């Protein structure tokens, strides 16, 4: 009973709701900005790493390989610390940007791998048939390979986005005020005097967002599949 009345108290106290929504705002905006950075980076890196070999390309290919290896081989929290305390250790530099860039760069490596795998999963015969007809590499990619790869890539990128939202919860480690941190601060306040209540509520917020996203991705997937009327 006590738990329910406390949940009620939390939802009816303006101060608490403000804190939760402020945290939610931080979580969502980091996620959105990081996703955009991640997608742009991921697409570039993926296309560099599958491009035909040439002298100039091999330099870029090497850079991309190092980037993906480092990002995937080190913990996210460490990458965030390096951004916050080394790269952007500038007084007054907005933490929001630090976090968005850190997560964007991290996400880019995973997105790149997803896109690369998606493109490689398209049968090489599709490319060969296009090239044999006289289509240049770029046209073959754009008209034949990428449309087929997208079906494989969208779900993977959706999962990456979901993972990203949850992962942003570590920004409290660099003193940011996100949804997760809001639950801790509300819980430690004298009036609430309970961690379990705000944390459960915040958990429900995360669950709702993830559920919504999963739903949207399913719809997009269905739309994509419908386009090839099997």
């Amino acid at each position: 009973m006590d738990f329910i009345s406390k949940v009620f108290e939390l939802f009816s106290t303006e101060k608490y709701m403000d804190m939760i929504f402020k945290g939610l705002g931080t979580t969502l905006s980091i996620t959105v900005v990081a996703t955009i950075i991640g997608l742009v980076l991921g697409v570039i890196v993926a296309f560099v790493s599958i491009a035909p070999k040439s002298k100039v390309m091999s330099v870029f290919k090497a850079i991309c390989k190092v980037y993906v290896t480092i990002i995937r081989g080190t913990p996210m929290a460490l990458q965030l610390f390096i951004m916050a305390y080394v790269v952007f250790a500038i007084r007054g530099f907005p933490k929001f940007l630090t976090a968005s860039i850190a997560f964007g760069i991290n996400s880019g490596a995973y997105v790149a791998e997803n896109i690369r795998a998606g493109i490689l999963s398209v049968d090489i015969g599709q490319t060969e048939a296009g090239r044999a007809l006289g289509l240049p590499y770029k046209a073959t990619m754009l008209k034949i390979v990428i449309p087929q790869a997208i079906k494989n890539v969208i779900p993977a990128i959706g999962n990456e986005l979901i993972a990203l939202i949850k992962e942003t919860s570590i920004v409290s480690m660099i003193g940011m005020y996100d949804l997760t941190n809001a639950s801790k601060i509300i819980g430690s306040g004298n009036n609430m005097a309970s961690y379990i209540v705000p944390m459960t509520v915040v958990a429900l917020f995360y669950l709702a967002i993830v559920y919504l996203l999963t739903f949207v991705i399913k719809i997009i997937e269905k739309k994509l599949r419908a386009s090839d009327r099997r």
Partner: protein
Amino acid sequence: MENRETILSVRGLKKSFDKLEVLRGIDLDVKEGEKIAIIGPSGCGKSTFLRCLNCMEDPTGGSIIFDGVDIADTKVDINIHRENIGMVFQQFNLFNNKTIIENIMLAPVYVQLKKLKKSKAYNRRIKISNLFRKAEDKKQPAIITETKKSIIKNAREQAERLLKQIGLEDKANVYPSTLSGGQKQRIAIIRALAMNPKVMLFDEPTSALDPEMVGEVLNLIKAVADEGMTMLIVTHEMGFAREVATRVLFMEEGKIAEEGTPTELFDNPKNPRTVQFLKAVL
């Protein structure tokens, strides 16, 4: 056949994959209208040879003269030449994300739109540079009769005509996944024909087919051959090679070990390796 024009001339063609030497010097002249069957044991380099002819694999040595140009030279724009060299694969390789008619129209439309764009750009340049020329020096712009619309319309009509010829006009708007293997391969053949190639390359066009579908594909190839198309066919169908080919090449270990008319090669082989191979497959 002697006084026909040579359209493909291969000299000392070599291909290695890293250390593995697959083609070890191949010489071949292909005359217009010839139908050349290529036979030989598995792994002797038949596919590699065919794939070198349109540079799907870049040769590591030798030359391939086509249309007066050495296409083995990596500096030439291979795409222009590939438009004139049709290729049919063992695995059909129809574009899965395109309907049948889109499969057939894609390359012809793309190539012609590209040419249209080029002539338009050329005319724009002429127009500007003519401003600075005296009246008698003014250059004539290129005559453009096509529009984007007419290109697409013509390609569609051609595709429909080709589909009708093979009796698959009702499949125009379905996706490849709904077709049988034999149907897919016949579409792949007319897709290549839609580019009006000068040569067609077939790499075991019936090897991935169920036995009951081999006939329909061979019949189509035969029909294309009868129209005078120059072709090179890698095949294990000896009966078909004997019937359609004007010349048969027996390849072994990256070289042409023996060649001749079907009668010469099948009935009176000279090379003991040819004898051995024919004994095993016939």
